[in-house]
């Protein structure tokens, strides 16, 4: 099955694009070609690893926006059976709209797939992550956005031994409906991605003051601090502190989930934790069964004591 991986190196995502291109092709999709879109001229060309026998197209455009990418893919890269994108705002949109334009089929946030001769079998979470559905797609081309489970970031680098082809698209400006455009930096999730010890607060924090208090206790414990979606949406903490499907997928050695109900969309963000400790008033909250260890009751006096012990421990060392 002729497969193309499409990546957006955009204005700041080169590392991610390189990583996903490298690992994806070498280990997961050995027969796929890759198209990498990036902006010019402010940036250097992305350095892409190319495994033997494979081809990468580096496509330099004035603006990496879905309309431009869709036009280029349909005009120049229309011969593939399977198009793969990393799940996200860009990947989901281009996958679905490309399939619609090419009369194919699509799925987003696919956790696993198997491509046969006449169909592609995909698994993805549904019912807010409580269930996993299996779909069979036989309307080609099939366009999939793959969750980090199916297209993980690369660890390490390798030599470029395949073929790099460059396509320069300098003539395409912004789509007509966009009158002005500016890029605003997104605050980094910072320590969350690589945290070894994580404290996550949920709706149980009740307000911004509750979140600030828990964050201070997390600092005392030497832990990174994140929040669940309801807490982020309620404005208790900035959005870049969000843990879960639409935020950071963390994999700490230890995670304390305080006042978090444990909905699947949140749990995806901590499911790779070594040990999960739940602190919750509600003994029937879903997080209790998903934790290794649980304390039933108000988390506040417990985390306050934990922070105090940590401070004393530090002082005595």
């Amino acid at each position: 099955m002729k497969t193309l991986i499409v990546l957006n190196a955009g204005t700041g995502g080169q590392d991610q694009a390189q990583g996903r291109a490298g690992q994806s092709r070498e280990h997961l999709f050995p027969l796929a070609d890759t198209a990498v879109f990036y902006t010019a001229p402010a940036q250097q060309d992305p350095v892409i690893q190319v495994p033997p026998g494979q081809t990468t197209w580096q496509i330099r455009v004035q603006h990496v926006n879905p309309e431009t990418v869709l036009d280029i893919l349909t005009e120049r890269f229309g011969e593939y059976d399977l198009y793969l994108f990393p799940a996200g705002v860009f990947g989901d949109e281009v996958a679905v709209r490309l399939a619609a334009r090419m009369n194919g089929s699509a799925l987003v946030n696919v956790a696993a797939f198997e491509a046969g001769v006449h169909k592609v079998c995909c698994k993805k979470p549904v019912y807010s992550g409580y269930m996993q559905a299996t779909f069979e797609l036989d309307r080609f081309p099939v366009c999939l956005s793959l969750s980090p489970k199916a297209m993980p970031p690369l660890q390490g680098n390798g030599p470029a031994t395949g073929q790099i082809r460059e396509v320069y698209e300098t003539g395409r400006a912004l789509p007509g409906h966009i009158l002005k455009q500016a890029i605003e930096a997104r605050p980094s999730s910072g320590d969350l991605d690589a945290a070894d010890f994580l404290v996550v607060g949920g709706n149980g924090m009740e307000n911004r003051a509750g979140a600030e208090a828990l964050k201070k206790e997390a600092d005392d414990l030497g832990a990174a601090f994140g929040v669940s979606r309801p807490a982020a949406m309620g404005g208790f903490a900035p959005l870049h502190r969000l843990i879960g499907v639409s935020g950071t997928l963390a994999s700490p050695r230890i995670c304390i989930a305080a006042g978090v109900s444990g909905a699947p969309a949140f749990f995806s963000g901590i499911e790779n934790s070594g040990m999960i400790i739940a602190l919750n008033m509600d003994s029937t909250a879903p997080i209790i069964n998903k934790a290794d260890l649980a304390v039933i009751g108000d988390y506040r006096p417990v985390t306050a004591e934990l922070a105090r012990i940590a401070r004393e421990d530090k002082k005595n060392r």
Partner: protein
Amino acid sequence: MNILVCFKTVPELERLTREDWVADSHLRVDTGFVTADLNPYDESALEMALRLSDQSGESGTSCTLTALTIGDSSRDPWLKKLYALKFDRAVRLECDADLRFSPEVTARLLAGYIQENRFDVILLGCQGGVGDNGMTPFLLAEYLAWPLISHAVEIRPASGNTLWVKSDADDEFLVQEAGTPLVISIGDSPNSYMRIPTLKDKLEYGRRSIEVLQQKAPETGNGNFCGTLVDLERLDYTRKGHILKGASPRDTAAQLYRIIKENQ
């Protein structure tokens, strides 16, 4: 500016117990016994439309707000609530098709209604629970041949018939001024819970009748856009769930601290 907000209600899935997560022979899970709530992303879309209307009013221009949902009469209390929040029209498309995993049918139903009416802006959530398809805004833009801004987090009126839109773009935010017509999907937008109508407004505006339009599921041609559902299984994340009991918070914390240190 004529604004249409498309929304859906979703069952409160966290109320289902572990035993409830069983698919029947038609690959359906019975969620009918739990209450439904607004899909969170759609709730943000509804509130953002109300704020756009408020801001337009302050600058001397006017917005006409229409709310639309697809489904049976169980959605009517939500539509009445939107009337009470001063939406100008509340519309329900009645269609008995299983729309859980059919975003193309949903998008075609919406596109059909939009093409018969005049709107400048369509707002809808980027994704909805149950199907979690995350495709309807993209397909709607394609079927209408309208431009799209996806995962908006903030919208304001700009000059004339244009909008200022801040949207999530994976590693950064895009801040754009965009012309209409335009489809905008709403992403994670903090502090966008929908306001609550006053009792006075409920009595004064909430009693208008809802426009109900019977619809047949449109033909989608050669197979389903997102394939055929062949299996549905419960995802199980169960761990030990050992309950730690201490004589006091101090005692519990001391035990926890030891465990943390042993496992760090």
